[in-house]
């Protein structure tokens, strides 16, 4: 009679540091992962490596001087930052914006959304392993948009274009024909990118069903943007609380079903198509002539009070909270950064998956460290 002895091999989970300097992910972000073999048991994000004290710097600058600071928050979508801040100040001081400026703002914001989503989708596919080919194709399209922005305001990354009460200067004459050409050609390019990787079996295997964010959790943590919409919640600030003149345009809001990485990727691609739809309508209705900047004093002194101005940025709900005490600089300036709040669910999304999936989940949330750390 033989008795079999059970041999128990003691394994213990070990902590691994996904350091601040990654080979190929987005910005200085550190994750401390507790691994059991290859499976992730727990994850703790550590950030703050890009903190520059923007909220404190803003307390010493006038309202117009803060606009170049807001450029550097989400540096991949600077125009949205400028616009959200200007909306907050206009709400605080009660300044109206002329018609032509509103249309120009919408055109620029939607172009910025297309550019930012191109970057996000390209780098997500690069994290899946397709070795820079999607990145280079998407950056080629982004170049077209950046050329247009260069034409309008002279810079390609930090625009400083929106002002309180309008935009800083009128668009040049060759802007609208170039935008029309872009809008005409872009759907063809989007179709080509979809053919490249939308039905690729390996991408489906890597991204479908991976990193699911359940609907309740998404609502509870306050997620917004494509991350929320991919989990099945049809919440878009352009429809739910329209700002500027978005209630005049007709567009759909793409909503995903499963909340996995593949749905987030598809939601972003569909949003790009809807942005092109808005662009077509806005170009058609753009009023000819008219001023683009309402008369505001050089140093704005809003009445004492507080205001919160928000918009639907490419990464989610971007909001600015301003408290004014009647002087030329705000008393308190706070940024509601969408990716900072979306990051809350990262640990839950990664638990139970393998190391290789962690990169994909992280890439699909589309983080920009400038606004996480401020």
């Amino acid at each position: 009679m033989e008795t079999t002895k059970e041999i128990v091999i003691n394994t213990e989970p070990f902590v691994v540091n996904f350091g601040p300097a990654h080979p190929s992910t987005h910005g200085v972000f550190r994750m401390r992962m507790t691994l059991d073999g290859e499976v992730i048991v727990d994850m703790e994000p550590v950030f703050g490596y890009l903190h520059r004290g923007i909220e404190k710097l803003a307390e010493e600058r006038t309202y117009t001087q803060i606009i170049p600071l807001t450029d550097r928050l989400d540096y991949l979508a600077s125009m949205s930052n400028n616009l959200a801040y200007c909306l907050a100040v206009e709400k605080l001081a009660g300044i109206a914006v002329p018609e032509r400026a509103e249309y120009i703002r919408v055109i620029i914001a939607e172009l910025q959304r297309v550019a930012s989503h191109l970057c996000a989708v390209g780098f997500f596919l690069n994290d899946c392993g397709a070795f820079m080919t999607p990145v280079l194709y998407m950056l080629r399209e982004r170049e077209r948009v950046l050329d247009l922005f260069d034409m309008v305001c002279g810079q390609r990354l930090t625009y400083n274009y929106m002002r309180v009460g309008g935009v800083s200067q009128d668009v040049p004459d060759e802007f609208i024909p170039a935008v029309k050409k872009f809008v005409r050609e872009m759907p063809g390019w989007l179709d080509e990118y979809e053919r490249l990787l939308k039905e690729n079996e390996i991408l489906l295997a890597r991204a479908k069903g991976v990193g699911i964010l359940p609907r309740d959790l998404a609502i509870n943590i306050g997620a917004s943007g494509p991350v929320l919409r991919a989990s099945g919640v049809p919440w878009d600030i352009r429809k739910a609380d329209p700002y500027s003149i978005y209630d005049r345009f007709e567009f759909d809001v793409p909503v995903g079903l499963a909340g996995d990485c593949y749905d987030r990727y598809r939601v972003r691609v569909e949003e790009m198509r809807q942005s092109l739809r808005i662009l077509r309508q806005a170009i058609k209705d753009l009023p000819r002539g008219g001023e683009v900047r309402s008369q505001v004093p050089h140093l704005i002194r809003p009445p004492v009070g507080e205001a919160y101005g928000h918009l639907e940025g490419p990464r989610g709900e971007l909001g600015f909270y301003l408290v004014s005490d009647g002087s030329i600089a705000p008393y308190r300036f706070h940024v509601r950064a969408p990716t900072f709040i979306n990051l809350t669910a990262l640990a839950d999304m990664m638990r139970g998956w393998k190391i290789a999936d962690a990169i994909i989940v992280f890439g699909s949330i589309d983080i920009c460290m400038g606004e996480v750390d401020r």
Partner: protein
Amino acid sequence: MAMQMLPPDWPGNFWAHWAIFAVAVLVFVLLMVIVFIWFERRAMAVMQARLGPNRAGPFGLLQSVADALKILIKEDIIPARSDKLVHWLAPVVAFVPALLIFAVIPFRGGAILADLNIGILYIVAISSITTVGIFMAGWSSNNKYSTLGAMRQVASVVSYEIPVVLSLVGVILLAGSLSMQQIVAAQNIPFILLQPLGFLLFFTGALAEINRAPFDLTEADSELVAGYMTEYSGMKFGLFFLAEYAEALAISAIVTTIFLGGWRGPLLPDWLWFLVKVFIVFFVIVWIRTTVPRLRIDQLMALAWKFLFPLALLNLLITAIEILVWPAVSLWVFVPINIAIAIVLVVLWSKFFKLGWGKVEV
């Protein structure tokens, strides 16, 4: 066009034959690896809408030379607690088998270093030694992530050996011999037409063995570890890099010889056909690398064991049946039959292939 067949032991003296061909193989491999690196960078760049290196020398041809010089003059860092002898030997063990494979590749009619009558068996045996070198590299680095990466590599190579060898057996049955010369001589119809399924299986398995996309997870730079090459710098890293491209060259040469007809072709001289075919196969490898994302390790193993291995067995069975039952029929009849069978099998098996019988998510 008459094929100029050199006698197998040209020029008569055994030692002269060996010396000339050994030097020729060495020069060929090293030169072609440099050209391949340049070719890959330019081809991948054009497919990504940009130009590749074009500043160092005309058309950037000297770029690889510049990179090699840079690697040569870098400092050689050895981790303090590593296993020094194994650490030093690992690149050698990884690189030399890639050179040894070329002993049995026919470059032109009769120009072969050693016309072994067990050619394919020799290739299969030698190409597995590379894995030992890689594992030595991962183990001796005293770094648990390198060891993990090396173990993944060993697991994937062992899994993909079986479909590769089984698809080669199909070719051997058709040619009737293990010798590479005989296989080329027996290809009146290129075997890619007669064994389409075997070609696909062999190509996929070979890509996995040489660690190229979409199976390059051990050297992926968006993964946690940088793989078994982490602790290597200087020329040792250069040898690993060369080994990767030399293996890609070896696989292209093997595929050319076994499936595409080697040096046979209508108009151009033999060696030119060989080079053209090798370049075409390498271009397909680069093309796949540019387009396709990467697999995860468990998906990679599942693909080998559950998808490729049954198909390889079926391929072998069908080829054997065809040869036994209809030995006298002209081989051209089998071309459409085999292609149809290949398509049907791939389609049918894809429907049935699931990871973990559908119980495991993804």
